């Protein structure tokens, strides 16, 4: 569980995060949604410890980040996995080496133990036959799956995904979403996903935090996002007509 308490983050005088508080539970897929530029990536990178907030605190299962010693921070880092917006695979390494990298950095496992684990997670993301390809030779969907494999290979407690399915076709996008949800439940991970994809919201939005201009505008789940009359949320959700109809169906189902 991650508890976020009133965090503020500015860059060169302009405040990007203006005081966000919320909690993200374990074993659930938590979504952060909002328009482009609303601060989702900055929020996620702050949760990862890549940015230090000027104000506010973040606790990871009760461990308050700002109170940790640098060794404890390193330990915490080793418990985090991140899937970047552009996959961020190391392009000089093969797919298998990319996935093995966190193990080589953080564990004292033997070569064969590492191989086994890499084979296991690559199988888990349905990539059996791509071990020796370079990232540049893989399709966007494959790269995302490798990035997920790399993020989970060291059994993280916290998984962060920045728009894991952007730029993918709807089918592959759904596969990736479901994969992340399954992994989250299977290993009881605290997962936070940035997205502006309404399909993901519908599919896996167990908890949704809606950001607008650096503030939390709304939070809830995909069950009640269709019932809210918050204008910012409805403006976002019903930007396409399709979802107006979906809302109708939802409300009718409820009756």
């Amino acid at each position: 569980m991650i508890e976020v308490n009133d965090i503020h983050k500015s860059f060169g005088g302009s405040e990007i995060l203006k005081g966000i508080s919320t909690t993200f539970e374990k074993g659930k897929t938590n979504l952060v949604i909002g328009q482009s530029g609303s601060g989702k990536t900055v929020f996620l990178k702050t949760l990862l410890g890549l940015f230090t907030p000027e104000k506010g605190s973040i606790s990871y299962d009760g461990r308050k980040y700002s109170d940790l010693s640098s060794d404890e921070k390193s330990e915490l880092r080793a418990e985090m996995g991140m899937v970047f917006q552009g996959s961020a695979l190391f392009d000089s390494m093969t797919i298998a080496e990319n996935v093995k990298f966190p193990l080589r950095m953080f564990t004292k496992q033997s070569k064969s133990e590492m191989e086994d684990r890499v084979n296991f997670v690559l199988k888990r993301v349905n990539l059996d036959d791509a071990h020796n390809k370079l990232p540049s030779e893989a399709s966007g969907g494959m790269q995302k799956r490798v990035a997920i494999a790399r993020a989970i290979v060291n059994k993280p407690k916290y998984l962060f995904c920045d728009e894991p399915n952007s730029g993918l076709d709807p089918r592959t996008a759904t596969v990736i979403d479901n994969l992340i949800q399954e992994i989250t439940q299977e290993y009881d991970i605290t997962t936070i996903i940035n997205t502006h994809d309404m399909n993901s919201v519908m599919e896996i939005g167990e908890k949704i935090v809606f950001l607008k201009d650096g503030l939390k505008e709304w939070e809830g789940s995909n069950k009640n996002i269709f019932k809210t009359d918050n204008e910012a949320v409805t403006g976002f959700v019903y930007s396409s007509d399709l979802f107006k109809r979906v809302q109708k169906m939802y409300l009718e189902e409820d009756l």
Partner: protein
Amino acid sequence: MSYLHSIGQYFLMIKEIFRKPTKWSVMRRLVFKDIDDLIINSIGIVSFIAFFVGGVVTIQTALNMTNPLIPKTLVGFATRQSVILEFAPTFISIIMAGKVGSFITSSIGTMRVTEQIDALEVMGINAINYLVFPKFIALMLYPFLISIAMFLGILGGMAACVFGGFASLDDYIAGIQMDFIPFHMLYAFIKTFVFAFLLATIPSYHGFYMTGGALEVGKASTTSFVWTSVAIILLNYILTQMMLS
């Protein structure tokens, strides 16, 4: 003001290179890869340039010594002095600022814009150590490259001298052995080490702290070439003033 900020940031980066080192088993591979990319892959171009420019230096010197009272050995002597003191350490380093420097800036810059550096930092890795330290170690072999340039520069001069009929082989060889001052070698290699350090760090700085996208990677490479050359020329002047006069 922003220059001061950049210079400060540059020195902080240098400190960071040696902090929180990456596991040796991982680092070893990176060092070998950089030795290959930065040193081995430069041998060809450095040899080519050194040999032919050495020849040109000889021809120019010979053509300017028409007075029959000047001994023929001076051609070899002048070639040796200019190749060892300036041409090999400084001129080759400027070329390397273009070749190796833009390679370093664009490879690190690409890692920055594609969030690979963020990925390293998320894993708690000191990205500056991970990326710059191996380049620093690889470029400690840079004097080896400069030695090749010195040798081939003088050899090129010899070929030009003998084939051009400016002086006999014996005169040239006598010339390159004339009045040899060992301190000049020390001076040349101290310069080389300093330039190696600049070649490893300035382009890395420009790659590491860049922002933007692919277009900016190209711009950063150009800026990095300009600043690396400027630093080489300035330090060349300062070191020469300090050591030779």
